[in-house]
């Protein structure tokens, strides 16, 4: 598994280089499209997973979005950053899939897990924290989950997230604020238990 990158590193790609890649992909260069997919794979999958919860569903949604982006490349304005354009397609694909999903495969929320509970041993600590975070995320509206992942994990600005989600910038700030409030409480509780 790759080491976690600092926020934003994966998406802060030279726009000129990226515009050239997009132009080549649009002209039918499959290798160029492959490079774009590789660059945005992690971000797209995390955003889809934040929206859907289930990792398999998330990968399906991210894949659908990548194919959809390839078909829609003619509609992309090369003067604008590629990331928010692509991630808007990913967010929409994940949201559509979530709506269509008739059987919710995500495990039901365990209130004890979110609120606290017995602390596992040190080796499983990180995994348990991840599980608790995912459970906490699942209690938030999808838009809020995507907003905080794009802001705190991927390093996108409020303005860029507004483009991705198609909502005003002020609403993005509010979504990030509310998501942070929940997650900060959870992390503080976790730290307290650890001490």
């Amino acid at each position: 598994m790759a080491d976690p990158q600092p926020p934003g590193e994966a998406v802060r790609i030279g726009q000129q280089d990226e515009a050239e890649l997009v132009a080549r992909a649009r002209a039918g260069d499959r290798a160029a499209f492959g490079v774009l997919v590789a660059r945005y794979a992690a971000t797209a999958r995390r955003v889809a997973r934040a929206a859907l919860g289930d990792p398999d569903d998330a990968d399906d949604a991210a894949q659908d979005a990548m194919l959809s982006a390839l078909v829609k490349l003619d509609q992309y304005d090369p003067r604008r950053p590629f990331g928010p354009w692509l991630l808007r397609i990913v967010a929409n694909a994940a949201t559509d899939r979530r709506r269509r999903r008739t059987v919710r495969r995500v495990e039901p929320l365990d209130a004890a897990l979110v609120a606290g509970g017995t602390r596992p041993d040190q080796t499983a600590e990180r995994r348990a924290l991840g599980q608790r975070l995912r459970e906490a995320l699942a209690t938030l509206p999808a838009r809020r989950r995507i907003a905080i992942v794009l802001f705190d994990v991927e390093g996108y600005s409020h303005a860029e997230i507004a483009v991705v989600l198609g909502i005003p910038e002020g609403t993005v700030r509010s979504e990030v604020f509310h998501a942070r409030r929940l997650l900060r409480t959870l992390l503080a509780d976790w730290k307290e238990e650890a001490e």
Partner: protein
Amino acid sequence: MKESLPFDHRPDPAIGDALRRALEPGDDSAFVARVVAQVERVRAGAGASWDAVLAGWARVGVAAAVTIALAAGYLLGRSAAAPTPRRASVADAVLAPVTSSAEVEVVLASVIDN
């Protein structure tokens, strides 16, 4: 008064790191290979790819729209060219060529009455 929200304009590294680990999707190279393979499958669909199908539908749609527009234009033009039937007046009856004595009597009776 409503309290303003204390927005922080910078990413929170603690939340970011924790979320990144929680949402870690695993091996990206397998995902990339899967997407690229799917693109190849769609493109190798021997003309049966969905974008080709959509393009075909678009052509049929345009042809149907042109046919409907032509038919509508023809029908409108035809109805505009056809004469509108007019109600007969007393003057028409008086000036019209006489075809039977009964008709003459009816017309004269109506004129005398007026």
